[in-house]
């Protein structure tokens, strides 16, 4: 049957989002898309670090004071964060968000070492205690957030919901991090452009994807340039300084939560990033500081 592909754009997680899915009629499509976007919003609400009443808000507020009981979903996300921390040799650290207090990307200014030192003392996932279903941040001022893979996790959850609803063709795009349910109704893969890190409306390649997830980390989303040097929001947890080796790293992975974590780790590992992805058996498309492209089992149709 030739189902029509419906598009549902929406705003969530401070990003432009879209669900595309093939369904026999518009009513069915809308119902499915509404449930999926509601799931995205639920995750945004539950894990927002800006809301005092969210679980993340409560864990952060209790830093240095007491432990906070976690539900199973939060527990699983913390366990995954721990795994990413271990696998990245400590580079992927969900307590590194405090560094944002020194870096304001709307205001181009490089903070001094005296500003960064007290914040770096609060970046310490290894010190976080997780026992008996409760989590405790041992120093006042410590913070966690799921910024590194929360959006991707939401894309996975939304896609799984659609799949359970019978969707076979479509994808979920949350601000450029995408999880695919299946190819276009005629069997052709979706053609996904990779954003040019230096031209906001250009693409450097397009990749054919039907299944799995495509996620991209880059140095161009929140950033500023001073004296020709790019300072981006991907911050090294030990120096507190932005990483600079890659302009962008896109990863094709079975799950978006995996691709999101892995592409961020690759950015943080700088020169060793691609070897890490390769060891993990992940396909990637990366653009280095000089604009050269590097890819592995993913060969973008370069424009």
């Amino acid at each position, binding site marked *: 049957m030739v189902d029509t592909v419906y598009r549902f754009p929406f705003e969530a997680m401070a990003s432009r989002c879209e669900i595309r899915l093939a369904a026999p009629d518009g009513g069915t499509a809308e119902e499915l898309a509404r449930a999926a976007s509601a799931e995205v919003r639920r995750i945004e609400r539950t894990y927002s670090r800006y809301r005092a009443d969210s679980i993340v808000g409560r864990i952060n507020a209790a830093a240095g004071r007491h432990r906070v009981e976690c539900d199973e979903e939060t527990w*699983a996300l913390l366990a995954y964060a721990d795994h990413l921390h271990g696998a990245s040799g400590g580079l992927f650290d969900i307590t590194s968000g405090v560094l944002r207090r020194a870096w304001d990307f709307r205001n181009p200014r490089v903070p001094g070492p005296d500003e960064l030192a007290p914040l770096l003392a609060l970046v310490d996932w290894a010190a976080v205690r997780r026992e008996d279903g409760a989590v405790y941040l041992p120093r006042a001022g410590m913070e966690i957030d799921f910024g590194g893979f929360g959006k991707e996790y939401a894309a996975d959850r939304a896609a799984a919901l659609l799949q359970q609803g019978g969707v076979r063709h479509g994808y979920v795009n949350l601000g450029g991090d995408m999880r695919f349910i299946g190819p276009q109704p005629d069997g052709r893969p979706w053609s996904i452009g990779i954003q040019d890190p230096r031209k906001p409306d250009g693409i450097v390649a397009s990749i054919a994807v039907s299944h799995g997830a495509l996620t991209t980390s880059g140095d161009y989303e929140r950033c500023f340039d001073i004296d020709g040097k790019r300072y981006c929001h991907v911050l090294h947890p030990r120096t507190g300084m932005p990483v600079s080796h890659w302009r962008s790293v896109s990863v094709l992975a079975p799950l978006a939560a995996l691709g999101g974590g892995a592409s961020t780790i690759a950015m943080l590992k700088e020169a060793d990033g691609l070897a890490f992805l390769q060891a993990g058996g992940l396909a990637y498309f990366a653009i280095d500081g000089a604009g050269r492209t590097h890819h592995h089992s*993913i060969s973008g149709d370069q424009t």
Partner: protein
Amino acid sequence: MTTSRYTPQELAASLVAAALLLPGVQARADEPPQDGSISLRYLDYADSQPGLDRIRAHSPSVSVTAPVAGDWSIEGTLTADDVSGASPRYHSAISGASHMQDERKAGDFAVTRYFRRGTLTAGAAYSTEHDYVSRALSLNGTLSSEDNNTTWAFGLAGSRDSINPVNHVVVAERKRTVGVLAGVTRVLTPNDIGQLTLTRTNGSGYYNDPYKLFDNRPRSRRENTVLLRWNHYADSTGGTTRLGYRYYSDSFRIRAHTLSGEYVQPLGGGWSVVPELRLYTQSAAYFYYDPVYDATLGAPFPPGYSNGADPNRLSSPDQRLSGFGAVTVGLKVAREIGKLWTVDVKVERYEQRGSWRLFHDGSPGLAPLRARIFQIGLTRRW
């Protein structure tokens, strides 16, 4: 951290397992992250002429489609037919029922590379029977217009067969073919798709049937086909009509027309039914001779044989080169079971008669050929 005793490789590889522990990120826990499908079909084919069950074949086959990374896919099917039965009775030189026991092994393999606006597929096929080995290579591509409403297709194919019949009438004979294909598919309206495909195949070598006497065919064959297809989706019923017309002509002077139609109607509850009808008619090859034998010697000698006609002249008694018409009527019923399985059952009835030819001279003396085909298929997505 307790993970430091692992190598970086092990840690990176463990990420997949760790991500899979996240709740609700996959629709089904037992499903590997990338979809594919595996299908198992069982074909039961039996044909008959009045008073004789001729050939019966049971043929299980397995085909697998597995996506690899994002932009490659690999397809392959492996079939092993097992044929046991009498060789064709049509005034065949092997008269009577000399039973054949034959094992055929075949495999094919294709790799497709997807590009932004096109695809490229390279394929290879190999099949062997004890007296016939066939190898084929093909390269096919498609290119779509910017708006995706028009797709052009092109293809190149070549085959090399070697033939070593058990009766040693010839030894290590060969046949080679080279073919080209060009086509265009166009979305006509949101509900209609039209397609035109042209093919040309040039072949040279051994075209004879080594098991038939007086089967002496030209050593080259040029074949042309024109195929027109039209798919129409009906909003009112939710059904799809697929109509096709094919014209074939070759240097054996066979001209054939095929008209085919099927209608796919989805019903509720995962059921769908597909009735189909195919009408076929062809003219005889110029060197085909009807089952009229030499006045003196009788069967299987062709007319004029005893009067010293050139024994090496072109001739063939193969009924596939005769003029005939054929009708195929079929019905397929498919049912999706859950989200993972599809079962389909197909019954086809085929009848071929010399008198059903529509456009050219036929071979009215031949007994009609009837076949019924029963196929059951099971497909699982994974």
